[in-house]
């Protein structure tokens, strides 16, 4: 039985109900309930990964569960967010907002579970449309500008990805012939050595730029900081961060095809140098942009670009260990980043408003004096992002750096330098944000219970990195070995 279909179907079926019924508060509670159901079903999917179009492999299942978990905690934190912000938008727009939450979750899961390159593309497109609508929801001039930028860049990315998808199909013709087989990842991976190598290389260039736009790799990252900063906070930051994973895993899977063809002298170029270059450019761009940002959501948007870059770099280094490191990095980053944005929204709520424009560092500074638990949670998340021990990301970055030294020694120097610049830029903001004197007119506030969810996220990221359950370790290393 195809159990992978269930979470996608649940998210999809809830959309009309969330979109048409209820007050904002009811919608938020229903959204959290649906998200919990989706999370449980992503775990159930392990027992029946399905067949045909929606055939989830281990990679999709692991990331699906992480998506379900982050989606669920985001939805719980969202209840408190809506309670404070209900007056800002009309009832109709809140309904649209909750419907978009589930569309993005469902499309992300469909993209992770899809075995078909066409279905992968379609779910990426659905997620883009939903996220654009979400960004434009506040209807301020800057939100519309951000949404337009997202739409144009995302649209171009989607167009390029579709062209690449068709070229992969054409490249598979000599091996698999016309029909559905030439669009299935499982079949393509087996037939990669017999595919048309030069055509596959051309396809990969289009796919890299297409999905690279969605993964916000430099120089295609322009939409991300604006979209993160202008939309309604939980939806555009926590949730659409999850779609970055879909794009990055798509790049990984296609680069595996290219690598397999190259290894058996099928005429394709090696994907490594492309990926390493794009990864390094993204890391350095982030390093130099971070120090100039004043708005915290824009700041952490740039930090997402850095981590996309690190993951793509790891995929470019290749080999089972480096790919394992890259996958672990993505998983941990998903957990930490969504926790960070939840904590950030709490912090902004403590200072009065969660509307876009209330997230400047100068506005949030001195958080310890307002609420210690929120400050601890936010500070912990920000510190975890730097990749210094005991952050979970230290483990994955350590694996990636040591693999780089082993396999591509020349690339290790710029990688280390880039990671260091980013870490310093993040640390520079941490101290003032926590400990400098708070702005006047702010006074201590009681802790909200949703703040503890952030600590659960952080604990989970720590546990995954330093005490990974053997089952998960076995799954991930098997996936990495299969894709190297």
């Amino acid at each position, binding site marked *: 039985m195809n159990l992978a279909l269930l979470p996608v179907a649940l998210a999809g079926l809830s959309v009309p109900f969330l979109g048409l019924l209820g007050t904002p508060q009811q919608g938020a509670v229903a959204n959290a309930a649906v998200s919990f159901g989706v999370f449980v079903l992503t775990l159930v999917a392990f027992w029946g990964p399905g067949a045909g179009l929606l055939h989830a492999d281990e990679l999709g299942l692991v990331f699906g569960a992480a998506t379900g978990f982050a989606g669920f905690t985001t939805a719980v934190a969202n209840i408190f967010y809506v309670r404070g912000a209900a007056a800002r938008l009309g009832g109709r727009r809140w309904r649209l907002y909750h419907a978009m939450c589930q569309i993005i979750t469902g499309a992300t899961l469909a993209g992770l579970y899809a075995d078909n390159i066409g279905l992968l593309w379609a779910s990426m497109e659905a997620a883009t449309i939903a996220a654009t609508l979400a960004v434009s929801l506040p209807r301020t001039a800057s939100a519309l500008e951000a949404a337009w930028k997202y739409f144009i860049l995302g649209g171009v990315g989607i167009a390029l990805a579709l062209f690449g998808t*068709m070229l992969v199909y054409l490249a598979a013709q000599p091996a698999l012939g016309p029909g559905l087989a030439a669009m299935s990842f499982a079949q393509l991976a087996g037939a990669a050595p017999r595919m048309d190598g*030069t055509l596959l290389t051309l396809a990969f260039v289009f796919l890299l730029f297409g999905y690279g736009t969605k993964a916000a790799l430099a120089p295609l990252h322009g939409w991300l900081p604006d979209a993160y900063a202008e939309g309604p906070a939980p939806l555009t930051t926590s949730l659409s961060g999850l779609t970055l994973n879909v794009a990055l895993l798509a790049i990984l899977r296609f680069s595996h095809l290219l690598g397999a063809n190259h290894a058996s002298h099928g005429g394709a170029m090696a994907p490594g140098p492309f990926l390493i270059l794009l990864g390094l450019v993204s890391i350095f761009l982030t390093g130099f942009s971070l120090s100039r940002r004043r708005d915290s959501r824009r700041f952490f948007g740039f930090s997402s670009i850095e981590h996309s870059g690190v993951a793509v770099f790891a995929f470019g280094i290749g080999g089972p260990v480096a790919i394992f490191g890259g996958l672990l990095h993505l998983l941990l980053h998903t957990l930490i980043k969504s926790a960070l944005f939840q904590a950030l929204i709490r912090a902004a709520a403590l200072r009065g408003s969660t509307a876009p424009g209330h997230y400047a560092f100068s506005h949030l500074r001195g958080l310890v004096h307002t609420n210690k638990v929120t400050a601890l949670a936010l500070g912990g998340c920000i510190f975890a992002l730097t990749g210094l021990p005991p952050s979970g990301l230290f483990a994955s970055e350590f694996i990636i750096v040591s693999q780089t030294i082993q396999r591509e020694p020349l690339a290790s120097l710029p990688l280390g330098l880039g990671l260091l610049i980013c870490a310093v830029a993040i640390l520079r903001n941490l101290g003032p944000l926590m400990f400098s004197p708070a702005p006047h007119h702010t006074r201590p506030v009681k802790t909200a219970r949703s703040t503890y969810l952030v600590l659960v996220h952080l604990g989970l990221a720590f546990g995954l990195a330093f005490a990974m359950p053997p089952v998960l370790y076995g799954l991930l290393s098997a996936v990495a070995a299969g894709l190297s």
Partner: protein
Amino acid sequence: MSLTFSLAHLMGGVILLAAFSLLSQRRLAAMITLYQVQALVLSAAAFWQGYAQGEANLYLTGLITLIIKALILPLSLREIVLRFNLMRAVETAMPVAVSMVLGVALIGVAVLVVLPTTPGNISLTREDLAIALSVVLLGLLMMTTRRGALAQIIGFLSTENGLVLAAIGMPGMPFVAEFSVALLVLLAFLVVGVFLFRIREHFDSLDLSGLEQIERRGR
């Protein structure tokens, strides 16, 4: 078989020509007409490929293209142009002559990239693919050289026509109709988005709730 080739190439050529003229055109109304011509020829090409390959799927693609892209979209775009009085010429980011030279260069790149990488296998697909890639690249070039939102959308629409042209030329590719529908959803959101954008500028308020108030007062 030779008729299949020459007709498919002729229609591909007309689509490319329309994409190229879009690049030189500076009036929105004329750009919409050119796009309409392009979409019409594209739907004819889809029907022809459906007939040549014996695929019912492609007839569906052709029908969708004809109804939505050749009729409904251009009509609604004209409506926007009329309603918001956008008859004047569009601003360009670079001189038209320069962008046309760039366009010729892009077509050259597309041909040089596609023809050597697809030696021999299926020559119908080969040349169609070169034309389709040229149309895609010309559309992207148009999006970067135009300033107005509507002109950028027409560039995107032209890009999308190139994608569908590539898809219908693929031998036996599944989901062609589904792809074109998925792209259309994206386009519909773009056009509606511009419409709302324009309404906002028109009423010179930052929030659509102002519009709802006007409606209520009118009743």
